[in-house]
């Protein structure tokens, strides 16, 4: 179904195919597993992926440690309501944000961090329990969808 052509005195082979041809299942032995693709906030083994771009610079910024403690506590919480035992961690984290208001504040100079708002992290935590509240903002959409899919599996 594909058409082949030789160029460069036979050195270079070119195969032309239609999109459908190419989207059909591959018979190649190379199996591209989930690990090879970009990860979301949750790794296949269920752990938090601190490297996820969707978490912005929270995991490695000045409030990194506090963020991780807060996020971890809420994420693994099995209490009802979820995260209710994490008030200390939450407080510490928000205090840190407050102390770094130049970086995390909501004034216009911080448009970069602003997008990676607390609400995004909350949604990531909440969606693990299949909460229906989904933040529809442009900034969180894709990260959220991706992570919801992974978490449901």
């Amino acid at each position, binding site marked *: 179904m594909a058409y082949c052509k030789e160029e460069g005195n036979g050195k270079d082979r070119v195969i032309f195919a239609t999109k459908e041809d190419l989207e059909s299942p591959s018979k190649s032995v190379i199996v591209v597993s989930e690990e090879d693709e970009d990860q979301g906030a949750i790794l296949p083994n269920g752990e938090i992926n601190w490297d996820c*771009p969707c978490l912005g610079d929270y995991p490695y910024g000045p409030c990194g440690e506090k963020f991780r403690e807060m996020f971890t506590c809420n994420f693994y919480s099995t209490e009802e309501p979820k995260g209710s035992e994490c008030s200390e961690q939450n407080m510490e984290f928000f205090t840190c944000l407050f102390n770094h208001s130049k970086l995390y504040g909501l004034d216009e100079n911080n448009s970069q961090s602003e997008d990676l708002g607390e609400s995004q992290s909350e949604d990531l935590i909440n969606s693990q329990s299949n909460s229906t509240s989904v933040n529809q903002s442009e900034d969180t959409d894709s990260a959220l969808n991706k992570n919801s899919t992974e978490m449901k599996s």
Partner: protein
Amino acid sequence: MEPENTSLVAISPDKHTRIKIQTRQNSTSSTVKTGSIIGVCTATIIGYFAYKKGVFKRKPGGKKSDGSAASVAEEDDFEEEEEKVPAPTPDLPEHVQYLLIGAGTASHGAMRSIRINDPKSKVLIIGSEDFMPYMRPPLSKELWFTEKRELVENFKFENWTGKEISIFYTPEAFYAEPKDLPTLEDGGVALLTGHRVVKLEPEKKIAHLDNGSQITFDKCLIATGGKPRNLSILEKAPKEVKRRTMLFRTIKDFQKLDSVLQSSNSVAIIGGGFLGSELACALGRKSKSTGLKVFQIFPEKGNMAKVFPEYLSKWTTEKIESEGVNVISERHLKSVSFKDKQVQLKLDNGDEAGDAACFYDILLGRRRVEHHDHAVVSGKLAGKNMTGADLGPNIGYEAIGIVDSTLETVAVFAKATEEDTPKAATGKTGEGLRSDSEKGTSDSVPKTPAQPPKLTENTENINVPKSAEDYGKGIVFYLKDKVIVGIMLWNVFGKMPIARKVLRDGAENEDLYEVAKNFFSENKE
């Protein structure tokens, strides 16, 4: 992760100065009127932990500063600034846990990794430029496409959604003061700009700075990156020419070029590789609104000829020409002079390769020469490094591994749709830059793929592409002894992880058409 490239840019500092470019071939000469010459070179970024030479070398002797401030360059002039006396250093701690020498992409990536794996870590980054770590690709792409001056001057550009993206990886407030680093309970990252480490004592773990201060460390990373390499012709050129010559790599270089081009009527880029072609394209596009004449000069037959198989190089060259660039291929820079308000570029198709004019080593190609160990010379190791370019918003390519056009290649192409452009890919993956996810922002609106056309019943009726237009989207495998050692993704985005996997496996004895299919499958959403 760019290949080493020699590209030179020539522009006219004012409308009255012109360059005459003479080419000699079969006794005919052609004159190209451009302005002064600017040398534009890219540098090799040697992998993730760059600069394998170990101890940081002292900057080679050049102009010594007489202690005064940098000489004021003439407006529109590329006069090299005298070496500045380093500004007094803000208080540094005596000791730091992690010392990162260099404030570029590699350091930023390392910082992220360190902070993520060691959450309370304390990191000090020392960079010689006066800027925070930033992304380099926009300097030859998006910053030229941006119309709004106030954005460009603040190193910002608009992505496809109209959102402003800064080229800096983080806001300034991200960084702590170096002196505060030891006392930060949860650690942090401090940045020292405008300084260099001039000596390192690895056993004693001491780093010496250019202003005499020193700092001890637990761990140190040298990630100083590469420097552009000039052409000897230009290094030996008369002063009037050198004044109008520049290398291109940094923000400062971008600022210089941007400023000079405001009042120029022409520019010539020497070099036909990744950066030269990308920059030529960006300036070519700009030229449509400003009337700037853009030339690109190189000795190969076509753009990217050292990387792309010939048919693709030919196609690329035509595309770049359609972007408004006057491509002058198969020409060396033979000599350069300044006469009658004209900078003269004499081009030759002779083998005056002594000047090493316009040749470039792909990083990986060079490695291949230096390392005789066959085990090292494989796609595996080289596969750590990725490079690529965008030629305007409609052509984008990424390459990984050993992508040398002298290798045997097998390519699989599909006709592209609107979806298959760098511009569209930026939206899909939510990245501010098409090929750069290091920024880590996510602001995409997921796009639904266009409906594919219906399959025809008759499989014999496949349209045989006649025109070059049909290199819409595809994969080029570079083979050495039947093993894939390099992969080029042509308008295929977000598939680097798959490319890496294929490279690791080598795909020996595989049907490459089937292997290629892995790159065309729809993303799982």
